[in-house]
């Protein structure tokens, strides 16, 4: 082992090759797409070549005020995320606490998690109007079920011996919850919140696109209506980039929350 290799932590050395492989795969896929489109196998008026999309990225960022739109989407996601965290965790706790409520509602919540809620946007438009509230509520409702279900799962999975330790120290009900049940369930709860936030982001951008209002989703809809295909794909790439960054950040927080096993 060389000195340079010895200085790199083992984990970092292990991560380098998969990351490089992932990057090379993406570049290779883009190159293949470029040749296929330029070769005429795919109509370039339907799918523009990646090189044009990359060129359009700068134009979209500068001329279409992408950061302002990003902030609008981020604010909607943040509000929807905060709401689904608070309501989802509180509902999950209540359902874990009251078994009748859990038995009555858990299947419904699981069904909602599997339903394509985005098709309900006309109803939300009627109830809340064509404004940010509709978008936020769509994100909130879509992200709620995983937060509820994972909270119930985390609390139910708390090892009985930890609860008995609490009892042996004569913990009161609230102490038992805050000092044992909740911290024991927190890693699983966060998985639910992370899934909820991802669902919320998908639905926020999707609703923006459908009602042409707000941030990044509306930008994609605008560009598509103008038949600026390179710009449309550039904006889609920007949304994907934001989603990836969001996912990585949430994963890091989750790892930080999860104790060493």
């Amino acid at each position, binding site marked *: 082992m060389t000195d340079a290799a010895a200085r790199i932590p083992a984990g970092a050395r292990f991560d380098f090759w998969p990351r490089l492989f992932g990057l090379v795969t993406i570049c290779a896929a883009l190159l293949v797409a470029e040749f296929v489109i330029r070769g005429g196998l795919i109509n370039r008026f339907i799918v523009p070549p990646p090189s044009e999309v990359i060129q359009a990225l700068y134009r979209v960022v500068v001329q279409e005020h992408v950061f302002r739109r990003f902030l609008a989407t981020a604010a909607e996601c943040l509000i929807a995320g905060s709401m689904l965290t608070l309501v989802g965790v509180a509902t999950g706790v209540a359902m874990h606490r009251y078994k009748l409520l859990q038995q009555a509602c858990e299947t419904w919540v699981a069904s909602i998690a599997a339903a394509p809620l985005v098709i309900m946007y006309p109803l939300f438009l009627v109830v809340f109007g064509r404004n940010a509230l509709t978008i936020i509520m769509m994100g909130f409702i879509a992200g709620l079920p995983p937060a509820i279900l994972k909270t119930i799962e985390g609390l139910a999975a708390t090892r009985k011996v930890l609860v008995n330790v609490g009892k*042996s120290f004569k913990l009161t009900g609230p102490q038992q919850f805050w000092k044992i049940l909740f911290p024991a369930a927190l890693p699983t709860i966060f998985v639910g919140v992370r899934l909820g936030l991802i669902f919320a982001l998908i639905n926020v951008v999707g609703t923006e696109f459908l009602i042409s209002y707000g941030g990044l989703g509306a930008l994609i809809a605008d560009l598509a209506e103008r038949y600026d295909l390179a710009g449309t794909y550039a904006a889609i790439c920007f949304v994907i980039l934001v989603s990836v960054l969001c996912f990585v950040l949430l994963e890091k927080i989750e790892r930080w929350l999860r104790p060493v096993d």
Partner: protein
Amino acid sequence: MPIDGSDNAILVVNDIVVRFETAEGPITAVDDVSFTVRPGEFLSVIGPSGCGKSTLFNVIGGLLDQHQGAVRVGGETVDGPHKSIGMVFQEESTFPWRNVTDNVAFPLELIGMPREKRIERARHFIKLVGLEGFENRYPGELSGGMRQRVSLARTLASEPKILLMDEPFAALDEQTRLLLGDKVLQIQQELQQTTLLITHNITEAVQMSDRILVMTYRPGKVKRIVEIDLPRPRTSEIVTSAAFGRYVAEIWNDLRVEASRGMRDEEQHALHPRGAGA
């Protein structure tokens, strides 16, 4: 076998009977168990698997209230977990989200001790169980034996009058078990800690105890109580002595019949799942 508790016993277990309803009908897990523990004494309860040892542990610890008879600590009847009884469980029971210091300081946090003071107290107990240098480690970074020592330190930090342990070293290998036995003995002798150990391990029981209560297989009754007249202070070196071997043989003699009965019962149960235990 009622006990009046008129001697200076710190713990009186009187006529405990525990019955469970099962699919195969009612089962008497513990039947008419009575004994006392004197202050500073180390008493072990030994018996084959299924003799109701852990049920008895839960009754004494106040975790199981569906029983007949009474448990008294210092004259006070135990009705739910009692502040004078500190419990160490068989399963790994450290809090994975707290480091060693915060785990051990847990009972001190509950009584509202200021942070600096409780950390100082926690460090005292961490040192006592021999985990100095691991104060900031999380349980996931420790071995099974070290985690059990964290649990022991956490219970000791609550300064219980009686330390109640349910097979705390059952999941550990024999060598670690002997060495941890040394540590428990050293702590017990240093603090004059009244200790009640539930175990199925004869060596462990003889190594540490002043008296050993031998239980029968289901229903769990007191078969006999053996006085262990080995010199103190003791260490694990005692296992090489002839007297130690005699005690082990004597207790095994008592237990063999019970363990065989338990094994036969389990075999019957496996062959005829319904009705074998009735």
